[in-house]
């Protein structure tokens, strides 16, 4: 299997605070890759670096063999223009903790928006496809509702459909269930499980250890801006090697 995402010594600072202190990891194509760790460990920041919502300060980050946000010429890196970054982002879907649906559009319009505006798909085609995707996440009957008329879990499933509408080769999930009522978490995880079975490459920042254990192919535990431990989820979760991982897991599990 080839590497979908590859990070080499990725550093990121916000002013004087160094959030990522050299991350090296590799995400294989078709894999479900889980990132866990305490808040402030840099896992969400790392995720946002992958589609260049945050610029990295040092190191290299590749998606599907291509540098993220930069072009290499000789030994130097040049930052890409905003429009070039936008083109690369089309292939990377992202789901946010707080959904970030467009509140002035109905569910189906939310899903149609990017294909119509970015890819130039005709409205009727986009609508049919959006309807299919909403059906896939179990919300076919909510197509005409505005986000404010949907529950958190329903909103998050629309957000997943919206990301899928661009036919991405990689999906990033930034704590997709952290803002949901416990009762609604299951629906969203079911959709993600389906997606994993369909062979989508997924990077999931999560606190759902059950999901990581069941669906995950690899798992990384991050703390203080570095990767502390990595391996198969079942091994890391049941038999952690590092003290830090042990103490974290003893509190969450």
């Amino acid at each position, binding site marked *: 299997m080839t590497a979908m995402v590859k990070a080499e010594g990725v550093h990121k600072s916000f002013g004087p605070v160094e959030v990522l202190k050299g991350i090296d990891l590799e995400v294989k194509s078709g894999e479900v890759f889980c990132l866990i760790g305490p808040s402030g460990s840099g896992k969400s920041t790392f995720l946002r670096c992958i*589609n260049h*919502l945050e610029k990295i300060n040092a190191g290299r980050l590749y998606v599907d063999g291509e540098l993220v946000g930069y072009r290499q010429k000789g030994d130097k890196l040049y930052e890409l223009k*905003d*429009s070039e970054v*936008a*083109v*690369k*982002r*089309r292939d*990377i*879907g*992202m789901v*946010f903790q*707080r959904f*970030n*649906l*467009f*509140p*002035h*559009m*109905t569910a189906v319009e939310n899903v149609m*928006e*990017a294909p119509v*505006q*970015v890819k130039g798909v005709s409205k009727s085609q986009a609508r049919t496809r959006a309807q299919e995707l909403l059906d896939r996440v179990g919300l076919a009957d909510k197509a005409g509702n*505005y*986000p*404010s*008329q949907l529950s958190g879990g329903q909103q998050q499933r629309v*957000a997943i459909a*919206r*990301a899928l509408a*661009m036919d991405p080769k990689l999906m990033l999930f930034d704590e997709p269930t952290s803002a949901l009522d416990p009762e609604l978490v299951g629906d969203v995880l079911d959709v993600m499980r389906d997606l994993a079975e369909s062979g989508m490459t997924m990077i999931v920042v999560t606190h759902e250890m059950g999901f990581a254990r069941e669906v995950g192919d690899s798992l990384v535990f991050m703390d203080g801006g570095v990767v502390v431990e990595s391996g198969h989820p079942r091994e890391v979760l049941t038999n952690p090697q590092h003290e830090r991982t042990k103490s974290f897991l003893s509190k969450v599990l």
Partner: protein
Amino acid sequence: MAIGIVGGVLLAVMRLSKNPVTSSIAWFYIWFFRGTPVLVQLIVWFNLGLVFEYINLGPFYKDEWSDFMTPFLTALLGLGLNEAAYMAEICRAGLLSVDEGQTEASHALGMSHAKTLRRIVIPQAMRVIVPPTGNEVINMLKTTSLVSVVQYPELLRAAQDIGQTSGAPAEMLFLAAAWYLLLTSVFSVGQYYLERYYARGSSRSLPATPFQKIKANVLSLSNRSSTTGGTA
């Protein structure tokens, strides 16, 4: 007013731009046009002919300044450019009110800055922009009375002139006031429907139009009278 609104949106976007040149141009414009009285600006525009005798736009246009700067154009430019400065700050407030996550989500979908602004941010900013803009429109309508200083026959001046000749100045002033009131009322109704349009999605159901409210009230009244009629 149209100049004001279009200019205001442009200036607000420029002001929020990451490019230091565009943002400082916008800052300077706002600083200047907001910092001097509109009455002074009007008089200055009108009297620029004292400084520049001719206006010369190369091969396109050449004329004496006093012919070019008619009272109407003075009014248009003076009020429009001044208004743009105020509208810029209103629009900026609106753009800043939209959650950062909206921009991020749009960028993550591969939409460009311009598309994000046009399709995602501005429609949401409008909810915040429309009410103070209504204020500005009404203010502007009333400010047109200042234009009388550059010999433009606007409403107040016309009313006074007729008052002088017909010998009924007080009546004509009342009439002028009534006209201002009528026009602002028309704008207020327009504003109500505009706000209603941009409120879609922000509350679970749209507020009723005045007509729907009246209908609902009448219906409930007639229901009540029929039920009380039944028990009595």
